[in-house]
């Protein structure tokens, strides 16, 4: 009974995912007004040759700031999880 239910859910999800290649065309993006503006004026306003770097660090700098903080938080979390095991070795002069 349980295996049958798992298999049925999987078939429904697979059928839903198969709509993606059926309904989208490849190579014709739908709304590209913002990117046309970036490609036309990006080199002059930011003086960079690489438009992807100009978008990541200049036009959309807040997303990069949030991503750096997420990476920092992940490293803090890993250090926090291994703290109890190193307690006898590193904190004995406290």
């Amino acid at each position, binding site marked *: 009974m349980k295996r049958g239910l798992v298999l049925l859910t999987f078939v429904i999800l697979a059928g839903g995912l198969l709509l993606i290649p059926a309904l989208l065309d490849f190579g014709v993006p739908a709304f590209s007004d913002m990117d046309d503006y970036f490609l036309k004026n990006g080199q002059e306003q930011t003086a960079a*040759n690489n438009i992807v770097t100009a978008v990541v660090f200049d036009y959309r700098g807040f997303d990069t700031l949030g991503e750096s903080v997420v990476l920092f938080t992940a*490293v803090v979390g*890993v250090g926090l999880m291994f703290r109890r095991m190193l307690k006898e070795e590193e904190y004995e002069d406290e």
Partner: protein
Amino acid sequence: MRMSKLVRTGADLLYPFALIFGLYIILHGHLTPGGGFQGGAVVATGAAIVIVAWAYEDVAGMIRKATMKVQESAGLLLFIGAAALALGLGYAFFYNVLANSGSLFGLPVPFGANTGELNTAGVIPIMNIAVGIEVWGGLTIILLYLLSGLNKKEEGS
């Protein structure tokens, strides 16, 4: 657990090349494909080769945890400082104040296809270097913590 002499010598020979290649990708982020995150990951891979080849007791003396912690925090602080530089000069937050001016990275760029010039693009190379330092420190710290957590024997928790 220590690998054989061949693997250790190969890792010692490969680490400077990975370091130079990663620093090249970080520094030329505004001219060629690449940037801060990609270059930082390449340098961390070079450090990972050295960590895997030597035993953990030898590596803990060569690549210390305290150095990498300071490096990661310094990278994030430099990034926020470069963004707040425009706030101190009277513009909005994250504004590119050094582009197209005469200062540190401020040469203008001719329109269309050209060969690249390193002195351009304002605040963007400073942000690239800051993010590269942060990603290098962060990924190496994760590897060191995972290895040291595995090597510690359990005392009946």
